[in-house]
């Protein structure tokens, strides 16, 4: 008896859990993405919309599949490439900086340059140059920017207003907040890492590593030692710590949303999530990434992810490009930006009425786009081979300077040795 009930229940369960199989479209393509939470929901909504509109019209059906975080998707891509199963690769894939090298080495890759060779009439001028350039490796345009973000400053506008303190512009301004608000709050929490340090060095007119920050070849040494940029930054950083305004720890979104931490620098893609977390307890302010000092340039580099394509024959190649153009086009970009905080990465989106209306209502979303506009063209994000090692070595070395009271000069030497050594090994392994 029990067995019968069990098997019936199981049969019902299986029937209920079957996914509807899609049939009818002429071209079936697969899209791998790495977006979770609100971003994932928004992205999947966009793909559904594509299937309903453009797809239905042109006989294309897209299946969007989550493949884990960026690095996990890259591991999988690597596995498929090395096991000789390029057929299992998707038609379109969302890729972040960690996947650039593996993708560019893949035979099945269908880069934007390949596309341009096939269809010279393709126009890329609508995409923001700074975002587009981020996905160019050794002169080859790999993909089209999809989720574009930059590092911005978040601050607790309610508290700063109540003490009459304006939004901070430079790191010195942040130091000044401590004196104004007293000891009841943590003013600013941060430990520099690859992109944030690179931003500050970029403002001082220096790259972090050589070969134009790794964009024109594999970097093998630091480019910020001889010009003194690293030491300048470290001096400012140490002074900031001395004011008591800097907490030598990664910013905690929890502490910020709780109103305990007043300023943090973080990806612009967090706006929507932060607003939910703050839940109206205070007003969230968003402004440009802090400048190292009054002489420094404005801005911060671009990060995020792009969409790349794989070659699975003529028909699917065309369908893949349809999807990429749709997702990176104005309407999708605005809708994705509204749901998350990523920056629309084409001019037509930024100029559209929908976006203008939206930022009029939620000014917090505007800061990132403005910053992208103001960032000097020659400021590039840093591409280094030993990415994880490099990232944590910067954090730990700078943190040790504050905790062990090293001089900026000693710290710069230590970093040149630590980080330079990692770059050399990487070059040796990949010659």
């Amino acid at each position, binding site marked *: 008896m029990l067995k019968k009930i069990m098997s019936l229940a199981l049969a019902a369960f299986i029937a209920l859990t079957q996914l509807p199989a899609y049939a009818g479209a002429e071209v079936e393509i697969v899209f791998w993405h790495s977006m979770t939470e609100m971003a994932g929901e928004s992205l999947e909504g966009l793909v559904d919309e594509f299937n309903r509109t453009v797809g239905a019209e042109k006989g294309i059906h897209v299946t969007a599949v989550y493949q884990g975080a960026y*690095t996990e998707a890259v591991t999988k891509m*690597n596995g498929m*490439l*090395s096991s000789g199963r390029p057929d299992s690769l998707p038609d379109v894939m969302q890729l972040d900086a960690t996947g650039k*090298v*593996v993708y560019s*080495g893949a035979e099945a890759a269908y880069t934007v340059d390949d596309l341009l060779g096939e269809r010279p009439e393709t126009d890329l001028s609508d995409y923001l140059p700074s975002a587009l350039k981020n996905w160019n490796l050794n002169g080859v345009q790999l993909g089209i920017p999809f989720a574009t973000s930059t590092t911005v400053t978040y601050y607790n506008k309610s508290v700063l207003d109540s003490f009459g303190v304006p939004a901070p512009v430079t790191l010195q301004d942040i130091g000044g907040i401590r004196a104004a608000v007293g000891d009841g709050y943590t003013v600013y929490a941060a*430990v520099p890492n690859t992109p944030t340090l690179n931003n500050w060095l970029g403002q001082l007119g220096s790259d972090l590593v050589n070969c134009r920050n790794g964009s024109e070849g594999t970097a093998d040494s630091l480019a910020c030692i001889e010009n003194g940029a690293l030491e300048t930054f470290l001096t400012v950083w140490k002074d900031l710590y001395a004011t008591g305004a800097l907490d*030598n*720890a*990664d910013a*905690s979104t*929890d*502490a910020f*949303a*709780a109103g*305990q*931490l007043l300023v943090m620098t973080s990806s612009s893609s967090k706006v929507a999530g932060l607003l939910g977390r703050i839940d109206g307890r205070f007003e969230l302010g968003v402004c440009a990434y802090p400048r190292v000092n009054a002489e420094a340039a404005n801005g911060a580099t671009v990060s995020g992810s792009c969409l790349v394509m794989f070659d699975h024959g003529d028909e699917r190649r065309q369908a893949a490009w349809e999807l990429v153009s749709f997702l990176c086009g104005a309407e999708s970009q605005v809708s994705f930006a509204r749901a998350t905080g990523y920056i629309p990465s084409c001019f037509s989106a930024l100029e559209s009425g929908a976006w203008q209306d939206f930022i009029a209502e939620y000014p917090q979303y505007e800061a990132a786009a403005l910053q992208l506009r103001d960032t000097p063209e020659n400021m590039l994000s840093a591409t280094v*081979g*030993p*990415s*994880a*090692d*490099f990232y*944590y070595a910067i*954090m*730990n070395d700078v*943190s*040790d300077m504050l*905790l062990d009271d090293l001089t900026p000069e000693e710290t710069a030497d230590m970093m040149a040795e*630590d980080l330079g050594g*990692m770059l050399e*090994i*990487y070059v*040796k*392994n*990949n*010659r």
Partner: protein
Amino acid sequence: MFAGDAGMQTVTAKKDNGKTSMARAGRLIKPYLFILPILVFAAGFVYYPFFKTFLYSFSTVNVMGEITSFTGLDNYRYLFSRREFGTAVSNTLRLTAMNVPLTMFFTLLLGRLLKEKRFLGGLFETMIAATMAVSMGSAALTFRVMLNPTVGWINSALGLGVRWYEDRNTALYGILLLTVWMGIGFNFLLFLAAFRNVDRDVTDQARLDGAGPVRVFLSVELPLVSPTLLYAVCTNTILALMTSGPIMILTRGGPSWSTTTLIYLMYTTGYGSGNYAMAACVAAVTFLLTLAFTLAGLWADGKRGDAR
């Protein structure tokens, strides 16, 4: 190596006169047939892939995972020269040295306490065993919220000012707390089963002989559950030496390398940095270290058994 086994063999070694050599050959092969299935899977899905990674550690490997040349011990030399390596070894050993005794102490205590079935005993049992069901990821996230210095309940309720995962002096203890907690459910159940298997007559007799409860526990019950204890010590040591999951989620090896363990180093210096050869070196070093500890444990147990 395995003390106390010898007596069991008398059965199989029973007189076999008159049997053919075929049967004798069958008997020789028989043990291997029992082990063969597990060996096939161990070889195919663990040793074969590991052998390939092991080769990496003596080679130059590019970011695509292709071996480009043979370099001998260069990779190991580079690994040993890295400042983080020494820190990682010391963190790993410290974590293990604290984790194993703590886990053993708590789970032995809990197992012994709940041995007798009493009022509410089933409830306590279920409460403790339920922790086993929590995945590492969920556990790490729960600890992150719970121990958050600002919005976590623990610090505010107990009036603590500890910054847990944000302070280089406490982060390792925060990781320890989580890893010990993760081990409680399973080890507790094993010890519970082991204590309940102890023959009542033996403990009653000891008590009649005038031994106090502590003495009965130490000199009667503990030796009787020692096979389980050996297993628990060995496996917990192995797991502790390979700690990495909680670190990836909670501290990423920081602050200031204070929670960088060997296997975590494998991720940052290896996979995270496109350096497969380095990942292979760390994995090989960790394997040898873990193997040495395990062999030492089994050997010590064998010695103890011989002395008995």
